[in-house]
């Protein structure tokens, strides 16, 4: 008898839970691939997305931006790179879209090296494509990336121009019309960050929000991995919080609803987060199913062992 036949005979003799327990993990990877790719194809072909019911934290982000008077200054820190764009780009897109629609003056900064390029791309996709009347320097400006992490944050509290002496085009901060009168971070009534890790939302709370003598509201969007660390700061230190792609989808649906025009469909680029909730649903159902199967196996083995 060959070794393969011997193993097969043994496998057949094992009880069902033993066989399930020893299942090749590649089958689970294949199942996960199908669970994620199926809804992507279905949503991609039909264009249908799942309805979203916004939670308190996501509603707070929307309301915080919505209640600002037109022409208010907002500081937007893009602290992520393409590695996290799958989760965070939809948030950045919707946040910039709401600010642009509200005619707020946006100052983009980046504490991650590639954040500058991400900000530039978001400006192109949202502001230049859909709000061409907004002028760089008057309505929005990208200050680019600054190395220094927490040191840049601390410097922002006292001297904005020192922290960002020029914008991404090379224009001196003192020559940018919309930044006339901006001395420090507290001159911005609202700070918005989209963050993937360090330095990010937590550091903004620790080094800017808590240390700022004047009232400065702070809303943030973050990855799923860092969301549990940030929820304790909500709602006192972080006024609004978008946690992972779920938060992004909730916020996106609110922004789309507020800017909807009768008879005009929302542009597909503003449905990214909601499209990604379909795969989430099926993949989570699979995960729950696998956890249940794992527990059944555990108790079946325990029972067999006791007997």
């Amino acid at each position: 008898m060959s070794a393969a036949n011997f193993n097969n005979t043994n496998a057949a003799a094992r009880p069902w839970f033993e066989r399930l327990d020893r299942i090749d993990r590649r089958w689970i990877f294949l199942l996960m691939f199908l669970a994620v790719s199926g809804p992507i194809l279905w949503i991609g072909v039909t264009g249908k997305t799942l309805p979203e019911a916004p939670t308190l934290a996501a509603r707070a982000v929307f309301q915080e931006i919505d209640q600002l008077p037109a022409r208010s200054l907002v500081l937007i820190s893009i602290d992520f790179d393409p590695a996290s764009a799958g989760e965070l780009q939809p948030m950045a897109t919707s946040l910039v879209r709401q600010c642009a629609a509200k005619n707020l003056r946006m100052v983009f900064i980046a504490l991650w090296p590639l954040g500058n390029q991400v900000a530039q791309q978001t400006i192109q996709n949202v502001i230049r494509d859909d709000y061409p009347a907004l002028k760089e320097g008057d309505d929005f400006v990208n200050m680019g990336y600054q190395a220094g992490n927490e040191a840049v944050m601390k410097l922002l509290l006292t001297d904005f121009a020192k922290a960002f002496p020029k914008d991404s085009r090379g224009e001196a901060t003192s020559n940018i019309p919309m930044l006339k009168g901006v001395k420090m971070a507290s001159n911005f009534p609202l700070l918005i960050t989209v963050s993937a890790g360090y330095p990010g939302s937590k550091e903004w709370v620790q080094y800017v929000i808590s240390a700022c003598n004047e009232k400065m509201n702070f809303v943030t969007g973050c990855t799923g991995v860092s969301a549990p660390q940030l929820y304790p700061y909500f709602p006192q230190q972080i006024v609004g919080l978008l946690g992972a792609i779920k938060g992004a989808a909730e916020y996106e649906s609110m922004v789309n609803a507020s800017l909807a025009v009768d008879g005009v469909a929302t542009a597909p680029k503003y449905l990214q987060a909601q499209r990604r909730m379909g795969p989430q649903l099926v993949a989570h159902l699979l995960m729950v199913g696998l956890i249940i199967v794992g527990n059944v196996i555990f108790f079946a083995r325990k029972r067999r062992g006791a007997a």
Partner: protein
Amino acid sequence: MTRQAKTWLVIGAVFVALIVARGMIGQGLGRVYVKRTEVTAKLPDAAAVNSAAAAPSASASASTSAATTAASTQATAGPSGASSQATTQSSAASISWQEWKQVPPLEFAAAQKVNAAQTEITLSWPRTIGLWLAAFFTLAIFSFLYADNPCYKIAESLVVGVSAAYWGVIGFWDTLVPKMFGALTPGLVKSLVQPSLVAPEMLQQISMVLALVLGVMMLWRLLPRGGWISAWPLAFIVGVTAGLKIVSHVESDLMAQAAATMKPLVVSVTDASGATNMWDSWWASVANVLLVVGVICCLAYFFFSVQHKGVVGGAARVGIWYLMITFGAAFGFTVMGRIALLAARLEFLFDDWLWLIDPNHFRSL
């Protein structure tokens, strides 16, 4: 070959066959089209540039920065994904160049329909190859899920190499050049590499000399003798970091979080008319009670000066439940994040590469 290996071979062959079939029917597979546009910008006044480079004071740089950056403003304000190449310098006062902006295949098809010989929108071979390389490396990384293999090793090595090189370049151009060399020799940096450099103040220049000295002391450990000298800058870093972190943690995590925990256990929520909303009041009260009980019980679990028996033991057990629920929520968030990233990569494969779906209406109306 084992039965299992045969099974996976068949599954892999089915996927490859589907991809090949997809390439042979319909619109084919991923291609990138670009549109050529001419851009013209005014050149800055040469005299102003020279004077700015020669006298790098704060006031001089401020007054001339608009002139020195006039051309770069135009050049970098182009659309994302657009590449540019200076082709002509028509006169001393202006410069023109071509930019290629990525456009949807639908736009290419429309242009071809109007004029089949048009050259304004064309297939970009470099970008198309880039797209296929991105698809190959995505699949190469995914292939690790089956087993370690040469394709995965190549992709992994490339990621590490490219990342290391990228961080090196970023460190040099975004930190060393503007912050160190720009502070110590502003005129040289401004005239040679960064015309838009904002000259630092005297105090900043002095502080950068100190930073340079500390940096050299730090590197002293590489020499055979005098390694102890590197302990001084290290002590400086530890001291500054500790000072910064202690203050910020006490402010944001200890004091603010303790204050946020002191909540009323019975809450009365009123609506716009001033009437008490019983339902909201009930849930707000329950939320506050759960919060306060959770904090006390978790603290009890980590309080080891008293044996975990009786009331303290019960509170500690409740604390464990709170912790387990927290870990479960964190795991759930992590799963959500990872699936979102997987979905983004699969969207890229299905949309940009295989042209199976078209959520952005780039290829069909």
